[in-house]
């Protein structure tokens, strides 16, 4: 899988496009049956559209007839298909007639924190901004580790790595600078280098912070991304 890149500026006015390595996620436990034999996960067909409530209602005409049919037999069960493994599937949009749509109009719905829809608008694609065309700026905004840890929910993290010796010098110097100040540096987009980072197309804007540590000639430079702040939700109206 290709790795993400980010174009970073440092405190000395230098900049480079470097690599972001994702964290290793902990392995999920696997399962066996009680005899210790391995089992496998499967998604099975439980019912199909032809045996759904709407189709059955249109077939039997009225709820009374449908109820009678359900008592007398099993019209809701397609014995040919129920219990089969689905195998790989494609996700499709389904129209009011229950048939797949070949084209659909995608709109964006804005929902407030209470779950109420407040706007509906045409979808505007928002590109990722990790590697801007223009050279990024060093924001110069440092925040102590103590304050950052207690203020932000860092929901994603990437290790910033070098691909050559020049990048090593750049990143090592940046890590040492931050370590000496016991602080995280705000990294971001925009003219001041303090705007939100968007990691993927239409992704959630996040605040990015760089943390640096060194040990001898090695370094650990981490990009922490905060999806939200640790604070109390505002009471509704």
């Amino acid at each position, binding site marked *: 899988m290709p790795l993400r890149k980010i174009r970073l500026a440092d405190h000395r006015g230098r900049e480079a496009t470097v690599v972001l390595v994702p964290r290793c996620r*902990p392995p999920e436990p*696997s399962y066996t049956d009680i005899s210790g034999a391995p089992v496998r996960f499967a998604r099975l067909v439980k019912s199909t559209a032809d045996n759904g409530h709407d189709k059955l209602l249109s077939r039997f005409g009225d709820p009374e007839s449908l109820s009678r049919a359900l008592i007398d037999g099993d019209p809701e069960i397609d014995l040919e298909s129920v219990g089969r493994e689905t195998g790989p599937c494609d996700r*499709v949009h389904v129209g009011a007639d229950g048939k797949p749509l070949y084209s659909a109009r995608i*709109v964006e719905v*804005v929902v407030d924190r209470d779950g109420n829809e407040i706007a509906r608008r045409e979808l505007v694609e928002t590109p990722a901004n990790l590697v801007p065309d223009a050279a990024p700026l060093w924001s110069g905004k440092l925040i102590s580790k103590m304050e950052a840890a207690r203020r932000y929910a860092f929901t994603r993290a990437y290790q910033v790595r070098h691909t050559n010796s020049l990048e090593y010098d750049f990143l090592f110097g940046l890590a040492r600078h931050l370590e000496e100040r016991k602080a995280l540096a705000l990294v971001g987009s925009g003219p001041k280098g303090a705007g939100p980072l968007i990691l993927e197309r239409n*992704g959630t804007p996040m605040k990015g912070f760089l943390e640096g540590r060194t040990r001898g000639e090695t370094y650990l430079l981490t990009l922490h991304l905060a999806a939200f702040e640790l*604070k109390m939700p505002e009471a509704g109206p």
Partner: protein
Amino acid sequence: MTQSIDINYGGRVSRFTLTLIDRKRLHGFKRRIALDEQGIECNSALLTRDGRFLLSAGSTADAYLDANGDVVQRGDLVAVDAEGKPLPTLLATAGRPQPVEETATLEDFLNHVVTRVYLLETETLGAVLEKELRAGTIFHISFRARASHTETPAFLLANDDGIFLVQAEACHFDFVGLEQAIAETDNEWEAEETDGDAFAIEMDWEIEHAVA
């Protein structure tokens, strides 16, 4: 159902109720929906690759199958580690006072990513614990909302807005030197986590499916 946690620190038990907070609850969210030509919102469904079945939300079932293809009941499943050894079942922490295990350094805390955040409402709060939290101490604690086979790191901390319980996962990043340059197209890395909003439609289907 309201969750609570009892924390034993310095011989005094503090009791909190938990409220899950996330970006959606703090700021709202955006989602994408599909409309047909009449402007009616479309549902999402799964179409099997052979085109035979159109599976709407709630029309599939997840199961574990043995070598014969028979369904294994959930109660008969045994969680095992990578070497096939059975994993112990760790009980939920609710209803049992959890001792504060140790204080966490800032580096230790920053070695994790946050997976879940709870705002804690205080029912009873020991004076010593309150003093430590207000001074900026971050504590390691045990918290499991339900029984689990794996230990999930959790931290207790406070700021001016309140006291928070943060569940996390370790990043396992390591220091690198000059010789450890990485190839830009390295394939050893697993598929990345991606952002929820970019896949709102898929997520909606999954949520509907889970509810169904």
